């Protein structure tokens, strides 16, 4: 069990260094085991956006924290892809530039993984293969409608609609 954990840890760590630099377009990141018994020790995260000095994780901004978390998730998916992943508004704290990087990076995982993504961001919608709109035209009752990407508004009910 110990050597399996260590192998996985090392793989995730190497991946994290790369996924972080891709999403932040620079900077550096690392994972470290705490002192003590490697079978019990927790994991410390080091994350330094480009051009900044290394500081405690708590000083990262809301958007930088979310992007670092996404980088770590992608690093884990590279080691052990899950056939199906769900992201419920993970792009909410991100500004436009970071949403674009997130959506671009997401596309690269679609050979191993299917994603269901809930979002309010147009950029993430543009990266999707299928786009569904949910509406409560009748208050309290959820229904699905087809969505045309350019207006992301609802119209007639139908099945999946591939963005134009």
């Amino acid at each position: 069990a110990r050597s399996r954990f260590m192998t996985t840890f090392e793989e995730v760590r190497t991946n994290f260094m790369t996924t972080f630099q891709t999403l932040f377009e620079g900077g550096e990141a690392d994972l470290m085991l705490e002192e003590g018994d490697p079978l019990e020790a927790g994991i410390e995260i080091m994350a330094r956006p480009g051009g900044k000095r290394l500081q405690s994780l708590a000083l990262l901004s809301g958007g930088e924290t979310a992007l670092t978390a996404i980088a770590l998730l992608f690093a884990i998916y590279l080691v052990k892809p899950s056939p199906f992943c769900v992201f419920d508004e993970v792009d909410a704290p991100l500004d436009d530039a970071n949403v674009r990087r997130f959506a671009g990076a997401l596309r690269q995982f679609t050979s191993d993984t299917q994603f269901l993504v809930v979002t309010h961001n147009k950029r993430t919608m543009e990266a999707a293969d299928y786009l569904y709109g949910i509406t409560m035209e009748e208050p309290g009752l959820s229904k699905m409608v087809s969505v045309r990407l350019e207006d992301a508004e609802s119209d007639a009910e139908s099945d999946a609609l591939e963005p134009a």
Partner: protein
Amino acid sequence: MRLSHLEMIGFKSFSTRLKVKFSDGITAVVGPNGCGKSNIVDAIRWALGEHRATSLRGDRMEDIIFNGTAARKPLGMAEVSLTIDNSEQMLPVEYSEVTITRRYFRSGASEYQINKVPCRLKDITNLLLDTGMGAHAYSIIEQGMVESVVNGSPLERRQLIEEAA
């Protein structure tokens, strides 16, 4: 192994039947606040085996059953089905599609089915174990929880990596 589609009826705000076909890549769900997007995520988590009402944002399991609106009566059952495309025969069943169904009644009774044949919850969890679907905490990120992947304790972060080992 791919997820083909989701069907649900009577689950939370979806009193009429909903069918969501999944793409091989990215499927996006959009809509105004409170329209039912996160309820779809809850339906998937429930179908994959989530058994705690509070993890589905309810006080008790009955909260997942459609509770009515100003114009509609509450329903007596919630049902969610997930269909897995098994054309590559990854699952140890001879069907090209495998549908898992979960039902919950206001009486408190539960029902489980695989391809419309009644079974136990254990049969579904065993089947899913073979697919890797829903087994890892890191594959479903709920609304507002993305930061906690990084802000959690060092031991919580270790658990994430252990799941991948």
